[in-house]
Protein backbone atom coordinates (compact mmCIF):
# COMPACT_ATOMS: atom_id res chain seq x y z
CA UNK A 1 0.00 0.00 0.00
CA UNK A 2 1.45 3.42 -0.99
CA UNK A 3 1.91 5.84 1.87
CA UNK A 4 1.39 9.56 1.38
CA UNK A 5 4.80 11.17 1.03
CA UNK A 6 5.85 13.23 4.05
CA UNK A 7 6.63 16.93 3.69
CA UNK A 8 8.58 19.55 5.56
CA UNK A 9 6.26 21.56 7.80
CA UNK A 10 8.11 24.84 7.33
CA UNK A 11 10.88 26.43 5.29
CA UNK A 12 12.95 27.22 8.38
CA UNK A 13 12.55 23.63 9.56
CA UNK A 14 13.91 22.44 6.23
CA UNK A 15 16.84 24.89 6.30
CA UNK A 16 17.77 24.05 9.90
CA UNK A 17 17.45 20.31 9.25
CA UNK A 18 19.69 20.62 6.18
CA UNK A 19 22.09 22.81 8.17
CA UNK A 20 22.06 20.18 10.92
CA UNK A 21 22.87 17.59 8.30
CA UNK A 22 25.91 19.63 7.24
CA UNK A 23 27.12 21.04 10.59
CA UNK A 24 28.92 18.28 12.42
CA UNK A 25 31.98 17.49 14.48
CA UNK A 26 34.17 18.50 11.55
CA UNK A 27 33.12 22.17 11.72
CA UNK A 28 34.52 22.56 15.23
CA UNK A 29 37.30 19.96 15.26
CA UNK A 30 38.50 19.12 11.77
CA UNK A 31 38.46 22.58 10.23
CA UNK A 32 40.72 24.25 12.83
CA UNK A 33 43.28 21.45 12.51
CA UNK A 34 43.18 21.50 8.68
CA UNK A 35 43.46 25.28 8.46
CA UNK A 36 46.32 25.65 10.88
CA UNK A 37 48.39 22.73 9.56
CA UNK A 38 47.95 23.71 5.91
CA UNK A 39 49.10 27.30 5.72
CA UNK A 40 46.80 29.27 8.01
CA UNK A 41 45.27 32.21 6.17
CA UNK A 42 46.72 30.94 2.89
CA UNK A 43 44.62 27.75 3.33
CA UNK A 44 41.57 29.93 2.93
CA UNK A 45 42.52 30.60 -0.71
CA UNK A 46 42.12 26.97 -1.86
CA UNK A 47 39.29 26.59 0.67
CA UNK A 48 37.13 29.30 -0.88
CA UNK A 49 38.06 28.30 -4.42
CA UNK A 50 36.93 24.74 -3.61
CA UNK A 51 33.80 26.14 -1.96
CA UNK A 52 32.77 27.95 -5.18
CA UNK A 53 33.88 25.34 -7.73
CA UNK A 54 33.21 22.14 -5.85
CA UNK A 55 31.00 22.41 -2.79
CA UNK A 56 28.30 24.81 -4.00
CA UNK A 57 27.77 23.12 -7.40
CA UNK A 58 27.63 19.68 -5.77
CA UNK A 59 25.29 20.93 -3.08
CA UNK A 60 22.89 22.34 -5.71
CA UNK A 61 23.14 19.16 -7.79
CA UNK A 62 22.33 17.00 -4.75
CA UNK A 63 19.32 19.11 -3.73
CA UNK A 64 18.07 18.89 -7.32
CA UNK A 65 18.64 15.12 -7.62
CA UNK A 66 16.79 14.72 -4.34
CA UNK A 67 13.79 16.86 -5.28
CA UNK A 68 13.61 15.15 -8.68
CA UNK A 69 13.72 11.69 -7.08
CA UNK A 70 11.00 12.64 -4.62
CA UNK A 71 8.63 13.18 -7.52
CA UNK A 72 8.88 9.41 -8.18
CA UNK A 73 8.66 8.58 -4.48
CA UNK A 74 12.39 7.91 -4.20
CA UNK A 75 14.12 9.17 -1.07
CA UNK A 76 17.40 7.36 -1.60
CA UNK A 77 20.04 7.18 -4.31
CA UNK A 78 19.16 3.82 -5.92
CA UNK A 79 15.79 5.17 -7.05
CA UNK A 80 17.08 8.67 -7.72
CA UNK A 81 19.79 7.42 -10.08
CA UNK A 82 17.29 5.04 -11.67
CA UNK A 83 14.94 7.94 -12.40
CA UNK A 84 17.74 9.90 -14.10
CA UNK A 85 19.61 7.14 -15.91
CA UNK A 86 17.60 4.48 -17.67
CA UNK A 87 20.09 1.65 -17.27
CA UNK A 88 19.85 -1.46 -15.08
CA UNK A 89 23.16 -0.65 -13.38
CA UNK A 90 22.11 2.81 -12.21
CA UNK A 91 20.26 1.60 -9.10
CA UNK A 92 23.21 -0.55 -8.02
CA UNK A 93 25.51 2.43 -8.32
CA UNK A 94 22.93 4.28 -6.23
CA UNK A 95 23.17 1.43 -3.72
CA UNK A 96 26.79 2.45 -3.25
CA UNK A 97 25.51 5.86 -2.11
CA UNK A 98 23.20 4.11 0.35
CA UNK A 99 26.16 2.06 1.56
CA UNK A 100 28.16 5.25 2.21
CA UNK A 101 25.57 6.81 4.53
CA UNK A 102 24.87 3.50 6.31
CA UNK A 103 28.50 2.62 6.92
CA UNK A 104 29.48 6.13 8.01
CA UNK A 105 26.56 6.10 10.47
CA UNK A 106 27.86 2.86 11.98
CA UNK A 107 31.06 4.46 13.22
CA UNK A 108 29.85 8.06 13.45
CA UNK A 109 27.30 7.04 16.09
CA UNK A 110 30.23 5.89 18.25
CA UNK A 111 31.90 9.33 17.95
CA UNK A 112 28.63 11.10 18.75
CA UNK A 113 28.17 8.95 21.85
CA UNK A 114 31.58 10.12 23.09
CA UNK A 115 30.43 13.74 22.91
CA UNK A 116 27.34 12.87 24.96
CA UNK A 117 29.47 11.04 27.50
CA UNK A 118 31.92 13.90 27.84
CA UNK A 119 29.04 16.37 28.28
CA UNK A 120 27.84 14.26 31.19
CA UNK A 121 31.34 13.88 32.64
CA UNK A 122 31.92 17.65 32.42
CA UNK A 123 28.67 18.47 34.17
CA UNK A 124 29.15 15.91 36.94
CA UNK A 125 32.72 17.03 37.68
CA UNK A 126 34.35 13.80 36.53
CA UNK A 127 37.18 15.86 35.04
CA UNK A 128 37.86 17.82 38.24
CA UNK A 129 41.57 17.69 38.97
CA UNK A 130 42.53 16.53 35.46
CA UNK A 131 45.02 19.30 34.92
CA UNK A 132 47.28 17.93 32.27
CA UNK A 133 47.03 16.47 28.82
CA UNK A 134 48.44 13.08 29.81
CA UNK A 135 45.76 12.54 32.47
CA UNK A 136 42.97 13.54 30.08
CA UNK A 137 44.39 11.43 27.25
CA UNK A 138 44.54 8.40 29.53
CA UNK A 139 40.95 9.05 30.55
CA UNK A 140 39.86 9.16 26.90
CA UNK A 141 41.80 6.02 25.96
CA UNK A 142 40.43 4.14 28.97
CA UNK A 143 36.91 5.30 28.17
CA UNK A 144 37.29 4.16 24.53
CA UNK A 145 38.64 0.79 25.67
CA UNK A 146 41.89 1.31 23.83
CA UNK A 147 43.91 0.84 27.03
CA UNK A 148 42.15 -2.34 28.07
CA UNK A 149 41.03 -5.76 26.94
CA UNK A 150 38.06 -6.14 29.23
CA UNK A 151 34.42 -5.40 28.36
CA UNK A 152 33.78 -4.15 31.90
CA UNK A 153 36.14 -1.23 31.21
CA UNK A 154 34.01 0.01 28.34
CA UNK A 155 30.63 -0.36 30.04
CA UNK A 156 30.28 3.45 30.43
CA UNK A 157 31.02 4.09 26.74
CA UNK A 158 28.70 1.21 25.81
CA UNK A 159 25.87 2.72 27.85
CA UNK A 160 26.32 6.12 26.21
CA UNK A 161 26.37 4.46 22.79
CA UNK A 162 23.06 2.71 23.49
CA UNK A 163 21.53 5.99 24.73
CA UNK A 164 22.77 7.80 21.61
CA UNK A 165 21.36 5.15 19.28
CA UNK A 166 18.02 5.04 21.13
CA UNK A 167 17.81 8.83 20.95
CA UNK A 168 18.70 8.95 17.24
CA UNK A 169 16.18 6.28 16.32
CA UNK A 170 13.51 7.81 18.50
CA UNK A 171 13.85 11.05 16.52
CA UNK A 172 13.69 9.12 13.25
CA UNK A 173 10.64 7.12 14.34
CA UNK A 174 8.68 10.36 14.77
CA UNK A 175 8.99 11.10 11.08
CA UNK A 176 10.16 14.01 8.99
CA UNK A 177 8.29 16.96 10.44
CA UNK A 178 7.41 15.37 13.79
CA UNK A 179 10.93 14.12 14.47
CA UNK A 180 13.78 15.34 12.27
CA UNK A 181 12.42 18.86 11.74
CA UNK A 182 11.36 19.40 15.36
CA UNK A 183 14.76 18.18 16.56
CA UNK A 184 16.57 20.55 14.17
CA UNK A 185 14.42 23.50 15.29
CA UNK A 186 15.63 22.89 18.87
CA UNK A 187 19.14 21.54 18.34
CA UNK A 188 20.48 24.01 15.79
CA UNK A 189 19.65 27.26 17.65
CA UNK A 190 20.97 25.72 20.89
CA UNK A 191 24.14 24.51 19.17
CA UNK A 192 24.77 27.97 17.70
CA UNK A 193 23.97 29.66 21.02
CA UNK A 194 26.44 27.45 22.91
CA UNK A 195 29.11 27.94 20.24
CA UNK A 196 28.69 31.73 20.19
CA UNK A 197 28.76 31.84 24.01
CA UNK A 198 31.97 29.79 24.13
CA UNK A 199 33.54 31.91 21.38
CA UNK A 200 32.79 35.06 23.41
CA UNK A 201 34.32 33.47 26.53
CA UNK A 202 37.41 32.56 24.48
CA UNK A 203 37.79 36.14 23.28
CA UNK A 204 37.56 37.41 26.86
CA UNK A 205 40.27 34.98 28.01
CA UNK A 206 42.86 36.93 26.04
CA UNK A 207 46.23 36.21 27.64
CA UNK A 208 45.60 34.06 30.75
CA UNK A 209 49.22 34.30 31.97
CA UNK A 210 50.65 37.83 31.56
CA UNK A 211 54.19 36.43 32.03
CA UNK A 212 53.68 34.48 28.79
CA UNK A 213 52.39 37.05 26.28
CA UNK A 214 52.75 34.58 23.38
CA UNK A 215 50.28 32.28 25.13
CA UNK A 216 47.32 34.26 23.91
CA UNK A 217 43.99 33.79 22.15
CA UNK A 218 45.06 36.52 19.70
CA UNK A 219 48.21 34.58 18.89
CA UNK A 220 45.99 31.58 18.18
CA UNK A 221 43.74 33.59 15.88
CA UNK A 222 46.80 34.96 14.10
CA UNK A 223 48.19 31.42 13.79
CA UNK A 224 44.99 30.42 11.95
CA UNK A 225 44.81 33.44 9.65
CA UNK A 226 48.42 34.58 9.02
CA UNK A 227 49.28 33.07 5.63
CA UNK A 228 52.18 30.77 4.88
CA UNK A 229 52.28 31.23 1.12
CA UNK A 230 55.06 28.67 0.66
CA UNK A 231 52.54 25.90 1.33
CA UNK A 232 50.31 26.97 -1.59
CA UNK A 233 52.67 25.27 -4.03
CA UNK A 234 52.07 21.96 -2.26
CA UNK A 235 49.21 20.03 -3.91
CA UNK A 236 48.44 18.39 -0.55
CA UNK A 237 47.19 21.76 0.74
CA UNK A 238 44.80 22.12 -2.21
CA UNK A 239 43.60 18.57 -1.65
CA UNK A 240 43.17 19.17 2.07
CA UNK A 241 41.13 22.30 1.38
CA UNK A 242 38.97 20.55 -1.22
CA UNK A 243 38.47 17.66 1.18
CA UNK A 244 37.47 19.96 4.02
CA UNK A 245 34.81 21.91 2.07
CA UNK A 246 33.55 18.64 0.70
CA UNK A 247 33.08 16.98 4.07
CA UNK A 248 31.83 20.09 5.78
CA UNK A 249 28.79 20.37 3.49
CA UNK A 250 28.09 16.62 3.77
CA UNK A 251 28.04 16.13 0.01
CA UNK A 252 28.57 12.66 -1.40
CA UNK A 253 26.59 10.89 1.32
CA UNK A 254 23.10 10.75 -0.11
CA UNK A 255 21.77 12.65 2.89
CA UNK A 256 21.14 16.03 1.24
CA UNK A 257 19.30 14.19 -1.54
CA UNK A 258 17.20 12.26 1.00
CA UNK A 259 16.04 15.43 2.76
CA UNK A 260 15.48 17.26 -0.55
CA UNK A 261 13.27 14.41 -1.79
CA UNK A 262 10.56 15.68 0.56
CA UNK A 263 10.38 19.03 -1.22
CA UNK A 264 7.53 19.82 -3.57
CA UNK A 265 8.48 19.90 -7.29
CA UNK A 266 8.50 23.70 -7.42
CA UNK A 267 10.13 24.36 -4.05
CA UNK A 268 13.30 26.41 -4.32
CA UNK A 269 16.61 24.57 -3.96
CA UNK A 270 18.97 27.40 -4.95
CA UNK A 271 18.37 29.98 -2.21
CA UNK A 272 17.61 27.32 0.41
CA UNK A 273 20.85 25.57 -0.50
CA UNK A 274 22.88 28.76 -0.21
CA UNK A 275 21.27 29.58 3.16
CA UNK A 276 22.15 26.11 4.45
CA UNK A 277 25.71 26.33 3.16
CA UNK A 278 26.19 29.76 4.71
CA UNK A 279 24.96 28.56 8.13
CA UNK A 280 27.49 25.75 7.83
CA UNK A 281 30.29 28.17 6.95
CA UNK A 282 29.33 30.42 9.86
CA UNK A 283 29.67 27.43 12.21
CA UNK A 284 32.96 26.44 10.61
CA UNK A 285 34.99 29.50 9.60
CA UNK A 286 33.72 31.90 12.27
CA UNK A 287 32.88 29.73 15.29
CA UNK A 288 35.11 26.75 14.54
CA UNK A 289 37.98 29.12 13.83
CA UNK A 290 37.44 31.04 17.08
CA UNK A 291 37.34 28.26 19.63
CA UNK A 292 39.62 25.21 19.68
CA UNK A 293 42.90 26.53 18.30
CA UNK A 294 42.89 30.03 19.88
CA UNK A 295 42.08 28.68 23.34
CA UNK A 296 44.65 25.88 23.01
CA UNK A 297 47.34 28.42 22.08
CA UNK A 298 46.31 30.60 25.05
CA UNK A 299 46.96 27.75 27.48
CA UNK A 300 49.60 25.62 25.77
CA UNK A 301 51.38 27.94 23.36
CA UNK A 302 51.90 27.46 19.65
CA UNK A 303 54.42 24.61 19.78
CA UNK A 304 52.33 22.42 22.10
CA UNK A 305 49.16 23.25 20.13
CA UNK A 306 50.85 22.09 16.93
CA UNK A 307 51.69 18.78 18.62
CA UNK A 308 48.10 18.47 19.89
CA UNK A 309 46.65 19.28 16.45
CA UNK A 310 48.96 16.77 14.75
CA UNK A 311 47.45 14.12 17.03
CA UNK A 312 44.12 14.61 15.29
CA UNK A 313 40.76 16.25 15.81
CA UNK A 314 39.87 14.23 18.91
CA UNK A 315 43.14 15.06 20.57
CA UNK A 316 42.28 18.73 20.12
CA UNK A 317 38.55 18.57 20.76
CA UNK A 318 38.44 16.12 23.65
CA UNK A 319 41.82 16.01 25.34
CA UNK A 320 43.04 19.60 25.19
CA UNK A 321 39.59 21.19 25.48
CA UNK A 322 38.78 18.95 28.44
CA UNK A 323 41.92 20.15 30.26
CA UNK A 324 41.40 23.79 29.29
CA UNK A 325 37.89 23.95 30.73
CA UNK A 326 39.29 22.77 34.08
CA UNK A 327 41.39 25.94 34.18
CA UNK A 328 38.41 28.27 33.66
CA UNK A 329 35.80 29.61 36.06
CA UNK A 330 32.52 27.72 35.56
CA UNK A 331 34.68 25.24 33.68
CA UNK A 332 32.31 22.33 34.29
CA UNK A 333 29.42 24.19 32.69
CA UNK A 334 31.56 25.48 29.81
CA UNK A 335 32.85 21.98 29.21
CA UNK A 336 29.27 20.70 29.20
CA UNK A 337 28.30 23.44 26.68
CA UNK A 338 31.22 22.50 24.41
CA UNK A 339 30.64 18.77 24.38
CA UNK A 340 26.86 19.14 24.20
CA UNK A 341 27.07 21.43 21.18
CA UNK A 342 29.28 18.76 19.59
CA UNK A 343 26.61 16.20 20.51
CA UNK A 344 23.92 18.25 18.78
CA UNK A 345 26.19 18.78 15.77
CA UNK A 346 26.84 15.06 15.57
CA UNK A 347 23.30 13.88 16.33
CA UNK A 348 21.67 16.08 13.68
CA UNK A 349 24.14 14.63 11.15
CA UNK A 350 23.63 11.07 12.38
CA UNK A 351 19.86 11.37 11.95
CA UNK A 352 20.42 12.51 8.36
CA UNK A 353 22.68 9.53 7.64
CA UNK A 354 20.02 6.99 8.57
CA UNK A 355 17.17 8.71 6.73
CA UNK A 356 18.11 7.43 3.22
CA UNK A 357 18.02 3.83 4.44
CA UNK A 358 14.65 4.36 6.13
CA UNK A 359 13.30 5.97 2.96
CA UNK A 360 14.60 3.03 0.95
CA UNK A 361 12.74 0.52 3.13
CA UNK A 362 9.46 2.42 3.34
CA UNK A 363 9.33 3.17 -0.39
CA UNK A 364 10.49 -0.16 -1.78
CA UNK A 365 9.27 -2.67 0.77
CA UNK A 366 6.18 -0.93 2.11
CA UNK A 367 7.53 -0.82 5.68
CA UNK A 368 5.93 1.71 8.00
CA UNK A 369 8.37 4.32 9.25
CA UNK A 370 8.36 2.73 12.73
CA UNK A 371 9.08 -0.75 11.34
CA UNK A 372 11.88 0.59 9.12
CA UNK A 373 13.36 2.51 12.06
CA UNK A 374 13.38 -0.60 14.28
CA UNK A 375 14.87 -2.72 11.49
CA UNK A 376 17.67 -0.25 10.72
CA UNK A 377 18.21 0.43 14.43
CA UNK A 378 18.83 -3.25 15.13
CA UNK A 379 21.13 -3.54 12.12
CA UNK A 380 23.18 -0.53 13.24
CA UNK A 381 23.25 -1.77 16.85
CA UNK A 382 24.69 -5.12 15.77
CA UNK A 383 27.18 -3.46 13.41
CA UNK A 384 28.59 -0.96 15.94
CA UNK A 385 29.89 -3.85 18.03
CA UNK A 386 32.48 -4.51 15.32
CA UNK A 387 33.62 -0.91 15.70
CA UNK A 388 33.77 -0.63 19.48
CA UNK A 389 35.47 -3.98 20.07
CA UNK A 390 38.05 -3.36 17.36
CA UNK A 391 38.65 0.33 17.92
CA UNK A 392 42.28 -0.03 18.96
CA UNK A 393 43.04 -2.20 15.91
CA UNK A 394 41.91 0.47 13.43
CA UNK A 395 38.46 -0.85 12.39
CA UNK A 396 36.91 2.63 12.64
CA UNK A 397 39.77 4.31 10.81
CA UNK A 398 39.57 1.80 7.96
CA UNK A 399 35.82 2.36 7.54
CA UNK A 400 36.36 6.11 7.82
CA UNK A 401 38.87 6.04 5.00
CA UNK A 402 37.03 3.87 2.47
CA UNK A 403 33.45 4.97 3.05
CA UNK A 404 33.83 8.31 4.82
CA UNK A 405 36.65 9.72 2.71
CA UNK A 406 37.36 7.97 -0.58
CA UNK A 407 33.81 6.72 -1.09
CA UNK A 408 32.23 10.16 -0.69
CA UNK A 409 34.35 11.69 -3.41
CA UNK A 410 33.69 8.73 -5.70
CA UNK A 411 29.91 9.04 -5.27
CA UNK A 412 30.10 12.79 -5.80
CA UNK A 413 31.97 12.25 -9.07
CA UNK A 414 29.47 9.64 -10.22
CA UNK A 415 26.45 11.76 -9.40
CA UNK A 416 27.76 14.89 -11.10
CA UNK A 417 28.57 12.89 -14.23
CA UNK A 418 25.06 11.39 -14.16
CA UNK A 419 23.58 14.86 -13.65
CA UNK A 420 25.67 16.73 -16.20
CA UNK A 421 26.32 14.12 -18.86
CA UNK A 422 23.77 11.31 -18.68
CA UNK A 423 20.63 13.08 -17.47
CA UNK A 424 22.04 16.01 -19.42
CA UNK A 425 23.13 19.44 -18.32
CA UNK A 426 20.27 21.21 -20.15
CA UNK A 427 17.63 19.10 -18.40
CA UNK A 428 19.60 19.28 -15.15
CA UNK A 429 19.96 23.06 -15.34
CA UNK A 430 16.23 23.45 -16.01
CA UNK A 431 15.44 21.15 -13.08
CA UNK A 432 17.84 23.04 -10.78
CA UNK A 433 16.27 26.40 -11.64
CA UNK A 434 12.71 25.15 -11.17
CA UNK A 435 11.16 27.33 -8.47
CA UNK A 436 14.49 29.08 -7.87
CA UNK A 437 14.26 32.22 -5.77
CA UNK A 438 17.74 33.28 -6.80
CA UNK A 439 19.16 33.51 -10.30
CA UNK A 440 22.26 31.34 -10.63
CA UNK A 441 24.95 32.82 -12.90
CA UNK A 442 25.01 30.81 -16.13
CA UNK A 443 28.70 30.11 -15.66
CA UNK A 444 27.70 27.54 -13.04
CA UNK A 445 26.13 25.46 -15.82
CA UNK A 446 29.63 24.98 -17.25
CA UNK A 447 31.21 24.63 -13.83
CA UNK A 448 28.80 21.76 -13.04
CA UNK A 449 29.41 20.06 -16.39
CA UNK A 450 33.17 20.50 -16.74
CA UNK A 451 34.99 22.09 -13.81
CA UNK A 452 33.57 20.19 -10.83
CA UNK A 453 33.99 16.74 -12.41
CA UNK A 454 37.56 17.55 -13.44
CA UNK A 455 38.32 18.87 -9.93
CA UNK A 456 36.94 15.63 -8.45
CA UNK A 457 38.92 13.48 -10.90
CA UNK A 458 42.03 15.42 -9.89
CA UNK A 459 41.31 14.82 -6.18
CA UNK A 460 40.53 11.14 -6.67
CA UNK A 461 43.59 10.63 -8.84
CA UNK A 462 45.91 12.22 -6.31
CA UNK A 463 44.31 10.43 -3.38
CA UNK A 464 44.50 7.09 -5.16
CA UNK A 465 48.23 7.43 -5.63
CA UNK A 466 49.07 9.19 -2.36
CA UNK A 467 46.66 7.56 0.07
CA UNK A 468 44.37 4.88 -1.35
CA UNK A 469 47.08 2.57 -2.61
CA UNK A 470 49.18 2.81 0.57
CA UNK A 471 46.01 2.31 2.65
CA UNK A 472 45.00 -0.65 0.48
CA UNK A 473 48.42 -2.26 0.96
CA UNK A 474 48.40 -1.33 4.66
CA UNK A 475 51.68 0.52 4.43
CA UNK A 476 52.89 1.67 7.81
CA UNK A 477 50.23 -0.32 9.65
CA UNK A 478 51.15 -2.56 12.56
CA UNK A 479 51.02 -6.16 11.22
CA UNK A 480 49.02 -7.24 14.28
CA UNK A 481 46.14 -5.07 13.02
CA UNK A 482 46.04 -6.47 9.49
CA UNK A 483 43.40 -9.08 10.24
CA UNK A 484 41.11 -6.40 11.73
CA UNK A 485 41.60 -4.16 8.72
CA UNK A 486 40.70 -7.04 6.40
CA UNK A 487 37.71 -7.67 8.67
CA UNK A 488 36.59 -4.07 8.18
CA UNK A 489 36.94 -4.42 4.40
CA UNK A 490 34.97 -7.66 4.32
CA UNK A 491 32.32 -6.04 6.50
CA UNK A 492 31.98 -3.15 4.04
CA UNK A 493 31.83 -5.46 1.01
CA UNK A 494 29.17 -7.60 2.71
CA UNK A 495 27.15 -4.49 3.62
CA UNK A 496 27.26 -3.17 0.05
CA UNK A 497 26.37 -6.60 -1.38
CA UNK A 498 23.43 -6.84 1.01
CA UNK A 499 22.19 -3.44 -0.07
CA UNK A 500 22.50 -4.42 -3.74
CA UNK A 501 20.46 -7.56 -3.01
CA UNK A 502 17.84 -5.42 -1.28
CA UNK A 503 17.75 -3.09 -4.28
CA UNK A 504 17.19 -6.11 -6.54
CA UNK A 505 14.38 -7.39 -4.31
CA UNK A 506 12.90 -3.92 -3.94
CA UNK A 507 12.74 -3.42 -7.68
CA UNK A 508 11.15 -6.84 -8.18
CA UNK A 509 8.51 -5.84 -5.65
CA UNK A 510 7.90 -2.53 -7.44
CA UNK A 511 7.42 -4.40 -10.74
CA UNK A 512 4.91 -6.78 -9.12
CA UNK A 513 3.07 -3.82 -7.55
CA UNK A 514 2.81 -2.18 -10.98
CA UNK A 515 1.50 -5.40 -12.56
CA UNK A 516 -1.02 -5.82 -9.76
CA UNK A 517 -2.29 -2.28 -10.35
CA UNK A 518 -2.58 -2.86 -14.10
CA UNK A 519 -4.49 -6.10 -13.48
CA UNK A 520 -6.81 -4.27 -11.07
CA UNK A 521 -7.52 -1.63 -13.72
CA UNK A 522 -8.29 -4.38 -16.26
Amino acid sequence: MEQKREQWASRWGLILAMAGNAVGLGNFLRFPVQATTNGGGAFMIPYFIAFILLAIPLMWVEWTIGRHGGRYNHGSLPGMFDSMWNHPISKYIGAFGLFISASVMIYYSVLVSWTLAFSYFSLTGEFNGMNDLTMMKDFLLNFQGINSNSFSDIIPSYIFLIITLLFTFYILSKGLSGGIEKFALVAMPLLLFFAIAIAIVVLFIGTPDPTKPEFSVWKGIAYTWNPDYSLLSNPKVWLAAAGQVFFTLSVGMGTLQAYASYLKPKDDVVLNGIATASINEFAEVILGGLIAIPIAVAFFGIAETQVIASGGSFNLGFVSMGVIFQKLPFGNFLGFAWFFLLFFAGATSAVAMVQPVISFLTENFGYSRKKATVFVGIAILISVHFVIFNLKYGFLDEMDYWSGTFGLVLIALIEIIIFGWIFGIDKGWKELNEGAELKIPVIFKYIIKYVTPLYLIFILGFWTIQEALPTLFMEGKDPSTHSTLWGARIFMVVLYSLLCFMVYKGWQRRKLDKLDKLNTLD
Partner: protein
Amino acid sequence: MFKFLTIDGLIFLILGWGFVFGLLGFSLLRILKNESKSKSKSK
Protein backbone atom coordinates in the same frame (compact mmCIF):
# COMPACT_ATOMS: atom_id res chain seq x y z
CA MET B 1 44.39 42.51 20.12
CA PHE B 2 45.69 42.44 16.58
CA LYS B 3 49.41 42.63 17.36
CA PHE B 4 50.05 39.07 16.28
CA LEU B 5 48.18 39.42 12.97
CA THR B 6 50.26 40.42 9.98
CA ILE B 7 48.75 42.79 7.39
CA ASP B 8 48.08 39.78 5.16
CA GLY B 9 46.57 37.86 8.05
CA LEU B 10 44.23 40.74 8.83
CA ILE B 11 43.23 40.96 5.16
CA PHE B 12 42.50 37.22 5.01
CA LEU B 13 40.51 37.39 8.23
CA ILE B 14 38.43 40.33 7.01
CA LEU B 15 37.87 38.72 3.60
CA GLY B 16 37.03 35.32 5.10
CA TRP B 17 34.65 36.67 7.71
CA GLY B 18 33.22 39.15 5.21
CA PHE B 19 32.45 36.39 2.72
CA VAL B 20 30.74 34.21 5.33
CA PHE B 21 28.71 36.98 6.94
CA GLY B 22 27.89 38.42 3.53
CA LEU B 23 26.59 35.11 2.21
CA LEU B 24 24.68 34.39 5.42
CA GLY B 25 23.15 37.85 5.64
CA PHE B 26 22.24 37.94 1.97
CA SER B 27 20.59 34.52 1.91
CA LEU B 28 18.67 34.92 5.18
CA LEU B 29 17.45 38.43 4.31
CA ARG B 30 16.39 37.25 0.87
CA ILE B 31 14.41 34.40 2.37
CA LEU B 32 12.74 36.73 4.88
CA LYS B 33 11.86 39.13 2.05
CA ASN B 34 10.46 36.35 -0.14
CA GLU B 35 8.51 34.84 2.73
CA SER B 36 6.87 38.17 3.66
CA LYS B 37 6.06 38.78 -0.02
CA SER B 38 4.33 35.43 -0.34
CA LYS B 39 2.48 35.97 2.96
CA SER B 40 1.12 39.35 1.81
CA LYS B 41 0.17 37.83 -1.58
CA SER B 42 -1.82 35.08 0.11
CA LYS B 43 -3.66 37.73 2.21
